[in-house]
């Protein structure tokens, strides 16, 4: 990452000064240093265990237990040692550490004051259920609000997100985890001050710790899964080097059409995968044939035309792909029934396949192949409209035309695919909003392959692995489009 802009530095420094002012009163004689030290050690341990992997919920329960057990000024100190010692992967490290220490200090300070204002400490030590829920929820709300405000600020200063959108959606994402962690923290505080003492309170942390750990595992597994899908696509690119980046662009075009048709978000995601994986069956076609120069014989063409069936054979075991599997099988069907493999016509062809067929043809026309130059987008659209009704579904063509009017098409972005870039993209879990994104405890992803907007960029093909040998020569493609 590039160095933080000066105004982000200024923002973090100001916040840190504010935080220091908040914790200053804790240095007086009334602080229970033993409790504070134990909580701080726990927090540091939890942070260390949780952050070892990818972005996962921060370890809040200890912090909130601190809010419920300690005076506001001291509560903030719980997070400081852990945050300052934590490992930070990305630069600028010092600034990130400072930010991670400052954010909980300010949030805990605010939460502590909200809690004390409603007479929480007395209610918790009695314990006076259910009244104690009132100060506790006030504290949780204050905590989440301060976190959100600070996060939005960092988006504004470091990521240059416009002020109108910086705070949008942050609170709904951060509030539920903080609320659950807050309840755990409350139980911890109640047990801590009960006769059973700290050992009983520590037990509350175990399920929280386990769930944080599992979420981290989940994220790791999910990114590994994405990498595998990418590897599938790259394996096709290795064999058929013309079409580098083609799969990913077809995915993007399919998404454009699906959105234009008003499909639900998860269907749009499936269509992205349908587009990305539509040619995966080419893995089954002999490399020599895919790279052949000159016209193909009828026999060779028949072999190449098997690729939708091969592809379906490969992906049909992958449950989450749903209707994308049918799209892989039928993306070369034509509306008039003259396509392959089954010669379906009209509405017999699954909708997803009709979308991918249009996206596939559009990208084939607008990208440069070594035997011809790319056609301009309007010419390609005119050609699609000419074939609508016979080869393509007119609805899909219309949707693509409208979507491109609105969003435009940037085939250059991914047309080249610089050598080696695919490998760099493999491990990334990206999509983090700079400094700020890490502070949110929110867990927004969905099962399967998540739908961040940046996904497409990271799926960029262009793998030039050491495995492939021989340069691709020019070959007029005679397979039907």
């Amino acid at each position, binding site marked *: 990452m590039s160095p933080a802009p000066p105004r982000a530095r200024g923002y973090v420094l100001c916040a840190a000064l504010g935080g220091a002012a908040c914790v200053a009163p804790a240095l007086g004689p009334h602080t229970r240093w033993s409790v504070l030290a134990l909580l701080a050690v726990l927090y540091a341990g939890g942070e260390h265990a949780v952050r070892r992997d990818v972005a996962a919920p921060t370890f809040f329960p200890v912090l909130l237990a601190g809010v419920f057990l300690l005076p506001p000024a001291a509560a903030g100190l719980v997070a400081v040692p852990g945050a300052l010692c934590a490992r930070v992967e990305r630069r600028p490290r010092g600034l990130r550490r400072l930010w991670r220490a400052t954010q909980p200090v300010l949030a805990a300070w605010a939460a502590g004051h909200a809690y004390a204002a409603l007479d929480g400490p007395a209610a918790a030590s009695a314990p006076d259920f259910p009244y104690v829920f009132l100060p506790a929820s006030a504290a949780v709300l204050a905590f989440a609000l301060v976190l959100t405000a600070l996060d939005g600020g960092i988006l504004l200063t470091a990521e240059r997100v416009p002020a109108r959108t910086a705070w949008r959606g942050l609170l709904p994402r951060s509030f539920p985890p903080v609320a659950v962690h807050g309840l755990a923290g409350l*139980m911890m505080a109640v047990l801590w001050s009960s006769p059973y003492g700290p050992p009983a309170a520590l037990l509350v942390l175990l399920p929280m710790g386990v769930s944080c750990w599992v*979420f981290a595992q989940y994220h790791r597994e999910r990114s590994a899964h994405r990498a595998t899908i990418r590897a599938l696509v790259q394996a096709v690119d290795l064999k058929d080097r013309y079409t580098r980046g083609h799969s990913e662009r077809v995915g993007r075009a399919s998404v454009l059409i699906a959105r234009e048709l008003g499909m639900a978000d998860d269907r749009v995601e499936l269509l992205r995968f349908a587009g990305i994986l539509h040619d995966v069956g080419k893995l089954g076609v002999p*490399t020599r044939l895919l790279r052949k120069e000159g016209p193909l014989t009828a026999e060779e063409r028949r072999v190449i035309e*098997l690729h939708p069936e091969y592809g379906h054979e490969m992906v049909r075991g992958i449950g989450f792909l749903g209707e994308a599997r049918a799209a892989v099988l039928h993306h070369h069907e034509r509306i008039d029934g003259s396509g392959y493999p089954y010669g379906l016509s009209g509405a017999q062809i699954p909708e997803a396949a009709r979308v991918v067929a249009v996206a596939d043809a559009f990208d084939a026309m607008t990208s440069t192949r070594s035997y011809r130059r790319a056609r301009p987008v309007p010419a390609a659209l005119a050609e699609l409209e000419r074939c609508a009704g016979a080869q393509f579904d007119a609805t899909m063509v219309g949707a693509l035309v409208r979507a491109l009017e609105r969003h435009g098409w940037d085939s250059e972005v991914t047309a080249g695919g610089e050598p080696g870039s695919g490998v760099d993209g493999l*491990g990334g879990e990206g999509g983090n909003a700079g400094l700020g994104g890490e502070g949110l405890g929110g867990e927004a992803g969905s*099962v399967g392959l998540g739908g961040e907007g940046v996904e497409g960029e990271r799926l960029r093909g262009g793998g030039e692995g050491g495995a492939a040998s021989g340069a691709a020569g020019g070959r007029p493609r005679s397979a039907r489009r």
Partner: protein
Amino acid sequence: MTARPAVRLPAALTAAVRAAAALLALGALGATLWRGVEDPGIALAFGVLIAVGELARWGSGKGREPAPLGAAGALAYALVGECAGRPSHHGVLQVLAVVVAAGLIGAVPHVALGRGPCLDHIARRVLTVGFAALCFQPLYNSGRLTAATGHGPAYAVVILTLLALTALCDAVLAAAMAHVRSGWPFGPLLREELRGMSGIGPAVCATGAVMALAVAVAGLWALPVLSLPLLLTQLAFRRYAAVRTTYRQTIASLARATEIAGCTPTGHARRVADLSRAMGRELGLAGPDLGVLEYAALMHDIGQLSLVDPVPEGATAALPEAEQRRIALLGGAVVRRTGVAAAVAVVVERQADPYREQPLTARIVRTANAYDEMARAEGPHGPLGALERLRLATGRDHQPEVVEALARVLARARGRPGERRPGAAPDRGARTGRAAERG
């Protein structure tokens, strides 16, 4: 091998476990109905909690705890001594009665939806909770426990120890049942069971203990508050399991790419994977190692995708060694890019090395692969001949212990005609074959 007792024993043990649980449950229900319910408020609250936990159940009960909240609630009820400072009076039989009744009520929607109640899971629950309650309630109700420990941290430690004992007991029971059901060695099974407890098991136990203590301090309000973290844990495990399933499917389809490309015969990768897993178990591997073994076996031929011309029949074992190693290295390179654990790539890379230079997992994959290729090449008498040739090659290529493990796995597979043989082709291969013929 010992095919006979291996068939009869599981039925006997499973029946014994179920019968014991059923007797206990019926006895407890009868006695509780006869004597009436002590502290009905507490019983109702825990009953609701257990029923809700059962309602949120997920999975079949094989492997991990399917209803963590129900289990934690049941354990907590077994260990509750007082509620908001007032002592409670329920005994062991009432604990069992509440657990059984709530469990059955919670199972009704599952049965209605066609997902039957998992009998083994319920039987295990009854026995474990009975064990915990039997250890705790008589001691507590007679007043000896509080006399010894008072209401301090020592009391919490006693409760925790009791739960650890219960969990151990449960693991031994589960491993024993799995042992007689599958015939796999008991040691690794128990290890796997204990390691499986490092997942949601401790969370369940800790929540059970903390619920019992928190109810003593704060009353029944503690129950919903403490359920939330555990539900969160369950959700996390669910997502993790879902993404793992998807991932396995993706790996399997990547493995089938070589079959579809005509590099390897239909079902080869799957057969080698099943065989490797069985051999790994036979050699005492567990958990993560078995996972590595399976993925590596599925992808061991992936290097052939990078060849411009396929190897005839995909029979790499017959190629010159330098060529074998080259293909293995290509495969390792592909596997590294798939984001699978590095251990898998190592196995794929080193599968063609002499066994003394290989890790155990790579030895297993090498032997299983060679067996599958040779057994197929030689017609009906292939398997025995292949085993013989592997035994002759134990000087350099194959480790003798691994070959013997293979022999045992094969013998057991033949001994049980009813079970799917690890070497048998899965039926889904048939369609791949048809597609490949047309190519």
